C-alpha cells in the first residue's frame, strides 16, 4: 500500500499515524509537507493527522484547509482514494468541505483527553469493516474542539445515508447526535475525533484502533 501522511506546521500526530500505518501495512508512508503541490504517484491512502495546525488560528483546520497540497487531496478523494482525517484532520476535512458540518468548541469548554467508549454504528464502510456493527470500542480522545455541528436536516440526511461511522457512548463534547466519526457520501473519506492510531498494540492499553487500519487494508486490497 502506498500511503501518504500530510504534515502541516503544528501537526503532532503525524508520526503516530505513520507508525500505525507502517505497523499494519508493512510499508512506511510518505510524509508529505503541506506546501507540496502533488502527492507521490500511486498514493492509495491519505491520512490527515491530529495536532494544532497553524496554532488553530482563525478556526481549527481553517488555514491548513487552504494549503497547496489540499487540491491534490481533494482530487484523490474524488478519484475514490481513501482519506482518513483524525482529530485536527477531521477539522481540516470539514473546513475543506470534503465532509459536511463543523467542529466547534467542546460544550463544557474543556480540553478532553481520556479514553472513551465508541459505538461502531456500521461495519459497512472500508474504515469500519474490521469491527462488528453495534460493537463498543475504546479509543482515546484529545481535543478542545470536537463538538460536531450540522443543521437538523443535514444530520437527518447523514443518519439516513448511514454516514455516521462512530458515535460516542457517552456525552464527551456536546457533539450533535453523539457523532464521533463521519463518512462522505461515497464512503471513501472518514473524519473522526478519537485517535485510533494511539491504540495499535496492547502496550498502548488496547489495540482497538489497529482494527480500523487492518480492516481498511483488507477492504481496499
Amino acid at each position: 500500500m502506498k500511503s501518504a501522511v500530510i504534515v502541516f506546521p503544528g501537526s503532532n500526530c503525524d508520526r503516530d499515524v505513520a507508525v500505525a500505518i507502517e505497523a499494519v501495512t508493512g510499508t512506511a508512508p510518505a510524509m508529505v509537507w503541506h506546501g507540496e503541490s502533488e502527492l507521490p504517484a500511486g498514493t492509495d491512502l491519505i491520512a490527515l493527522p491530529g495536532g494544532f495546525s497553524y496554532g488553530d488560528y482563525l478556526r481549527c483546520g481553517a488555514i491548513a484547509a487552504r494549503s497547496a497540497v489540499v487540491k491534490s487531496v481533494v482530487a484523490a478523494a474524488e478519484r475514490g482514494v481513501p482519506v482518513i482525517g483524525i482529530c485536527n484532520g477531521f477539522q481540516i476535512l470539514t473546513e475543506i468541505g470534503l465532509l459536511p458540518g463543523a467542529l466547534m468548541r467542546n460544550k463544557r469548554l474543556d480540553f478532553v483527553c481520556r479514553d472513551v467508549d465508541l459505538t461502531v454504528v456500521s461495519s459497512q464502510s472500508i474504515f469500519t469493516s474490521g469491527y462488528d456493527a453495534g460493537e463498543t470500542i475504546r479509543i482515546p480522545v484529545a481535543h478542545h474542539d470536537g463538538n460536531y455541528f450540522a443543521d437538523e436536516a443535514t444530520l437527518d440526511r447523514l443518519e439516513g445515508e448511514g454516514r455516521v461511522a462512530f458515535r460516542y457512548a457517552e456525552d464527551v463534547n456536546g457533539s450533535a447526535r453523539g457523532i464521533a466519526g463521519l463518512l462522505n457520501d461515497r464512503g471513501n473519506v472518514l473524519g473522526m475525533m478519537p485517535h485510533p492510531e494511539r491504540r495499535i498494540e496492547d502496550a498502548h492499553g488496547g489495540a482497538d484502533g489497529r482494527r480500523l487500519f487492518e480492516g481498511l487494508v483488507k477492504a481496499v486490497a
Partner: protein
Amino acid sequence: MKLRVVVTLKPGVLDPQGKAIQHALGSLGFDGVADVRAGKIFELDVAEGTSDAAIGEMCEKLLANTVIENYRIEHVA
C-alpha cells in the same frame, strides 16, 4: 481602503464561550444579561477599488465558516 469584517455565530448555533462569558458577568454582579454571543472582528487594509465581490469572496472562502457563521462587512474609510 479599510474594512472591518464582523463574524458572528448563526442564530441557533450553541456558543459555549458566550455562555461562559454570560455566566462570568453574572458572577461579577451584572444581573439581567440575557445572552452573550462571542464573535470575531477582522480589520483589513485592502487596495483601493477592491470589488465588493472580491471582499465577499474573502469572507466566504476564509474569514467565515458559513456552515456556522454569518459575516458583515463594514467600510471604515
